[in-house]
């Protein structure tokens, strides 16, 4: 069982010394020519020290990125840092471990009593969240290798309708829900499996993923950062935290003069334009809608949870144990068309079918609970989004949408006030130079 692998690993760690003693073949040939038996080579795994360097680089790049976004306000430097991250976390570290995937490790650690999580992975998960809580999504701006790769291939970003942007923006919630369900039950790490960019980092693809990756890259040339906006499950957490962040990137360095010049500068459509002075809708109607939505929420959540829970058995088929148990059951009932290696290995190992079925039932029970929660979560996301859209907030300035802004700094240049600031800065420099 995959779930037990960590426990196993400790057992092995304990037993290595012991088993070494019984590894001598029987009986040892007595060489007369003075031949000495070589030891098998065992190239070491990456040294532990490198993990700390990774952590240091992560914190350093995050700090630098935050500074560049909030203080230095230089798109070119952000882009440069982004290229560095793309090289380091992407091509050099070959994409593992990345904060996006680390969600699953954390979830597995929380739900599977047998799963131990390396400290590095916890740090990789937590640190970008903390930075986002204080500075906005500066992680997305210049640290995340997946974002960097997409950012680098933007050629001619096209606008998509704002409503579509919002609807597609709900997909990450679904993805996150499924990723957590599958990680918590020990079935799979979906986010890693369907990571479209990691294949580029290590020059290794399977056929399906290669096509998916190419499609995402091609789309990414015209619709900026499609993965970040419409898929990334880590982005969900970052969105929430970014909305609450202490500081956040601003379009203008000081004040907004409502010149409209920045409105189209964001390829991610994350600039919010000012609202009319007066609430344009029918207040009573809006309020009625709000009450209706609030009243409907429990019902919708229940229906959705019920529907998803009814799929739990089928969802559980991704789990190794359920797959094996199904195959064994087919074979035992004479319905199997062929025998798989897995069933052969299972029968060779000598565990009883009964035990396997019980384990499978156990997994399916976990999936049942998980699917209820997943269904409820997804319905809740939609309902909360609808409820949120009922609220009207007046805005006088052009502001980045904190949830969806990647702090990439592209809008700085569109702001006349920024140009003013730069000129002043240069002026100071000039005067100092002179």
């Amino acid at each position, binding site marked *: 069982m995959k779930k037990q692998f960590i426990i196993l690993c400790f057992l092995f760690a304990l037993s290595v010394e012991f088993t070494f003693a019984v590894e001598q073949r029987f009986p040892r040939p007595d060489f007369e020519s003075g031949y000495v038996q070589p030891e098998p080579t065992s190239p070491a795994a990456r040294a532990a020290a490198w993990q700390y360097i990774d952590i240091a680089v992560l914190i350093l790049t995050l700090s630098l990125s935050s500074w560049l976004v909030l203080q230095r306000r230089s798109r*070119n430097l952000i882009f440069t840092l982004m290229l560095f991250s793309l090289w380091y976390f992407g091509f050099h570290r070959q994409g593992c471990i990345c904060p996006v995937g680390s969600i699953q490790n954390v979830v597995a650690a929380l739900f599977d009593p047998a799963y131990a999580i390396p400290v590095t992975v916890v740090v990789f998960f937590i640190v970008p969240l903390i930075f986002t809580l204080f500075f906005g999504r500066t992680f997305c701006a210049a640290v995340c290798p997946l974002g960097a790769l997409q950012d*680098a*291939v933007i*050629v*001619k970003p096209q*606008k998509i*309708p*704002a*409503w*579509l942007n*919002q*609807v597609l923006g*709900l997909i990450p919630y679904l993805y996150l829900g499924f990723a957590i369900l599958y990680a918590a039950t020990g079935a799979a790490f979906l986010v890693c499996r369907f990571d479209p960019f990691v294949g*580029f980092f290590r*020059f290794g693809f399977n*056929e399906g993923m290669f096509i998916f990756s190419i499609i995402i890259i091609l789309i990414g040339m015209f619709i900026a950062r499609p993965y970040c906006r419409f898929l990334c499950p880590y982005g969900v957490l970052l969105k929430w935290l970014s909305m609450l962040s202490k500081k956040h990137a601003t379009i203008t360095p000081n004040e907004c003069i409502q010149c*409209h*010049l920045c*409105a*189209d500068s964001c390829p991610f459509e994350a600039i*919010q*334009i*000012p*609202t*009319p002075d007066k609430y*344009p*809708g029918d207040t009573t109607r809006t309020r009625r809608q709000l009450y209706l939505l609030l009243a409907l929420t429990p019902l*919708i959540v229940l*229906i*959705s949870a*019920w*529907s*998803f829970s*009814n*799929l739990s*058995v*089928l969802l559980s*088929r991704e789990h190794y144990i*359920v797959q094996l*148990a*199904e195959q064994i059951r087919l074979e035992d009932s004479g319905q199997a068309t062929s025998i798989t290696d897995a069933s052969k290995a299972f029968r060779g190992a000598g565990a009883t079918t009964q035990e396997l*079925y*019980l384990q*499978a*039932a*156990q997994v*399916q*029970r976990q999936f049942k609970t998980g699917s209820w929660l997943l*269904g409820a979560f*997804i*319905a809740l996301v*939609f*309902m909360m*989004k*609808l409820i949120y*859209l*009922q609220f009207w907030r007046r*805005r006088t300035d052009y502001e980045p949408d904190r949830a969806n802004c990647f702090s990439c700094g592209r809008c700085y240049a*569109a702001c006349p006030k920024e140009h003013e600031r730069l000129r002043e800065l240069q002026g100071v420099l000039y005067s100092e130079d002179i």
Partner: protein
Amino acid sequence: MKIFNAEHIPAAQKVLQRIALIAAVFIFVISAFFILNYIQLKANPPLKSPALEKLYVQLDADPNNAELREQIRALDLLARKAYFTRQWQVNFGGYMLLAALVILLLAIKSISSMTIKYPELPKTTGTSWEVRLMTQKWVGLAGIILLVSVSALALLTRREMKTAAFAQPPAPPAAVVDFKIPEAADIESNWPCFRGPWGLGIAHYDNVPQRWDGASGENIIWKSPIPAPGFNSPIYWNGKIFTSGADATIRKVYCYDAQTGNLLWQRDVTSIPGSPTESIKVADDTGYAAPTMTTDGNFVFAIFANGDLVCFDFNGNTVWANNLGAPDNHYGHSSSLIIHRDLLLIQYDHSAQAGLLLALRANTGEQVWEAPREMGLSWSSPILVNTGSRWEVILSANPNVISYNPETGEELWRVECLGGEVGSSPVYADGFVYAANDGAKLAAIKLGATPEIVWEFNDDLPDAASLLATKDYVFVPTSYGAMSCLDAKSGEKYWLHDFDSGFYASPVLVGDNVYIMDMDGVMQIFKADKEFTLVSSASLGEAATTIPVVMDNRLYIRGSENLYCIGEK
């Protein structure tokens, strides 16, 4: 970023466009190459060449064909070369592709950065208000689509869901749910343990035959072989008879149908956690399955000489099992089990000075309490006594008779009166506990605030058999065949009769008669009276040292080989 002067821009752009074009073509070519390569690899993987395999088959048929060998070598080399070349091509091509992509991107980016962008009014269509309304609509629609799809999917896959589901593990609490503490009436209408209800040797039926003959078959309704040996007596509950058998290597529990004598199930008691791997040494006349089983109507319990304790349900499913630790007992463990409410009580005087009385939860096997007993080894069995005010579980051992509260294990009283190797179990009748063993004495203990010995008897004392006590009399069997009848209250000896054969089994009161099996398998039946009157001597036809199960017009007796059902036909 001012790389070019304004007048150079068109020319530079042209160059960049060319570069971009070349890079694009290059990418296209490499990609096409990759795809072709992939298709080719899929079609015929170089390391699995059918031609080569054919040659190998030929070579196996004609191993000395030098030409064939040369062919194989050439082909093999070719295949491996192809494989590694492909590998190199893929890796190298990958880098080339990446480099071309970078160039293409750089070129395109430079071109676009050179196009001077003048500020323009935003094209953003619609006010944020309209966008909001649209978004509301589409989020709502998307949600509905999703909900409808998932619900439809859930309905469509209902059958698949059912067939793909695995049965939930049979929850062990199910046993707890069904678990029912036996009523006194149930216990008295069955024969749940050693010497019948509460272990007192008093039958609650009196309509059983007084004569039978195993040889002629008279009054034998059925007989059924018991494969494994054991000196334990059968027990009975609702039409099922249970008994156990064991030798040095196997341990078995049998369940028979009381109606027909069919063996309903037999279970091997193996793989008990903690069970000793080496077999225990026991005396031949004690054996490996001396303790009588017990039941509470929910489960049956059996203990064996090596300390294996097992609980089955009535269908033979193991409910729980464990090993109490191999007893250090030179004859072999022989104390029988008894149930008080939901507690299984085990007299486990498993080594000198280190005895225990254990109470385990009947349905789970978890220990509820234990009372240490710094006694000598003993072979007697506990009895349960309702004194009118409380329940007591009373145990005999060297040198004490001790009573415990069966709920808590608290010691209630003790009387020192025994000695040596105590194999005879205590009995109770009408406020008196009687305990005896060969080499010590028979003591009549009157219960009360401080139980005390009222009278003693020292003539012919029991060894393995136990006493039988009624309101009026105490019957004292011995292993050499002497049977005494004493007055229960005064100890006055009414009579002494010498039977031909000795008694290891204990007597049972059936109506006005005492039934006791002698060592030859003959049931001696005599009146429970001040005068000795032999009613009958009924022979089983094989040796037996067990206690009969007395039910409605039925006696169930375990002989050395067979289980007998005796009744008026």
